[in-house]
C-alpha cells in the first residue's frame, strides 16, 4: 500500500499539471501496489481540470474498475460527493 499526498502535488502546479503528475504517480505504483491511498488533507476544491487529468484519465486508460485500487482519505463529505458524481458522469 502507498499513500500520495495531494496537497503536496497541488503546491506550485496548476490544476491540469498537478492532475497529470498524480496520474503518473498512480501509474508508477499501479502494478506493484494492492491499493493506493490519496490523502486529501489541506485540499479544498477539486476542479474538473484536476480530475480530468488524473482520475478521469485513469478511467479512460484502464476502465472504471481501476478505481477499486484507489481510496481517498481525509476527504470531506462534499469532496466525496463531488468525486462520486464525477465518476458517475465520466464513466
Amino acid at each position: 500500500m502507498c499513500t500520495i499526498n495531494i496537497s503536496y502535488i497541488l503546491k506550485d502546479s496548476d490544476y491540469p499539471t498537478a492532475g497529470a503528475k498524480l496520474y503518473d504517480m498512480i501509474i508508477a505504483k499501479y502494478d506493484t501496489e494492492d491499493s493506493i491511498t490519496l490523502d486529501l488533507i489541506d485540499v479544498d476544491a477539486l476542479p474538473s481540470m484536476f480530475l480530468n487529468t488524473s482520475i478521469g484519465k485513469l478511467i479512460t486508460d484502464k476502465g472504471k474498475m481501476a478505481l477499486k485500487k484507489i481510496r481517498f482519505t481525509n476527504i470531506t463529505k462534499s469532496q466525496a460527493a463531488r468525486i462520486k458524481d464525477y465518476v458517475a458522469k465520466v464513466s
Partner: protein
Amino acid sequence: MATLTFNSTNKDIWLSKIMDYKNCVHNEDCENVVLTFPNIEVKDLSPVHIVTLACLIEHISRFDVNIKVDRQTAVGNYLYLTLKFKEYWAGGQDHSHIEDENILNLWRLKEEQKELYGDEVANYLKSKFKSDKDLSAVKLSITEAFYNVCDHANANKNAFSFIQFDPDKQILQIAVCDFGIGIGNSVRTVLPDASDEEALRKAIEPRFTVKSRMHNSGMGLDSIRGSSTEDQNMLILSNGAFLMTKGDSVRTKNLDFEFRGTLVYYKINLNHYDAAETLETLDFDYL
C-alpha cells in the same frame, strides 16, 4: 466626444446598450468618452452591471480613448470612489481591494492568475465567514469559470469577475464576463449547424467539450451549475441566446441583440451549505 448614457438597470436594456456602445466607439473613432448614469441608483446595480461595464471600458480603452466617468451621478461616483475603477485603467491594476466587506471587487482574468483568484475567493470567504461551513464549492465554481474563460473564450484578456454578498439573504452573487468569441462560436467549431440556443444547451451537458485544451472534458459548466444552489438561478448569456437553469430545469431563449462574448451569472445560497465534515475514507467498492 461621445457620451455613453446608462439610464436603466433593467438587465436587457443595460446589456443591449453595452453592445451598442461597444460598436459605437469602435466605429466613431472618437478621442473622448464620458460614461454617465442618470436616474439610476447604486442599490439597483448587480455584479452583472459591473462586469459588463468593466469589459466595455476595457474594450474602449484599447482604442487610445480618454475615458471619464460622470461623477455628478451617484453611480458614477460609486464606480470611481468605492469600486476604484480608475485604478484598473489609469493605474494598471488587475484587482483593487475595497472597504466594503460584502464585495470582492473586480478581478481582471489573466491566464497566469486563474489559480490565484480561486485562492483569493477562498481567503475572502474564510475571513468573512468565520464559520465551520464547507464553502469549497464556491472556490470550485469560480475556478471552473476562470478556466472556462482562459481555455475557450479567446478574450484577449478582456474578462472580469465580481462577487457581491447579500448578508440578509445569505446569498453570494457571482458574475464573470468576457468579450471573447462566445459559447455559440466555440461550440460551432465541433457542431457547425448548432444555433446559439442549441449551443448553450450543449455547453452545459456533462462531457460535451470543444476540447480547446487537453485537460477539457466538458465538466466545467456542469460543476458551476452544481454549485448554484437549487433555489437559485444560473444564467448564461452568449452570442444571440440566453440560458437559465434552476434546479433541474433549463430554459433558453433568443436575445433581441447579439452579446459578443459570454456572461455567466449565478447565485449561491449559503444557508444551504453544511458544516465541513471529514469522512474517514472513500473507496470505490460500490462500482
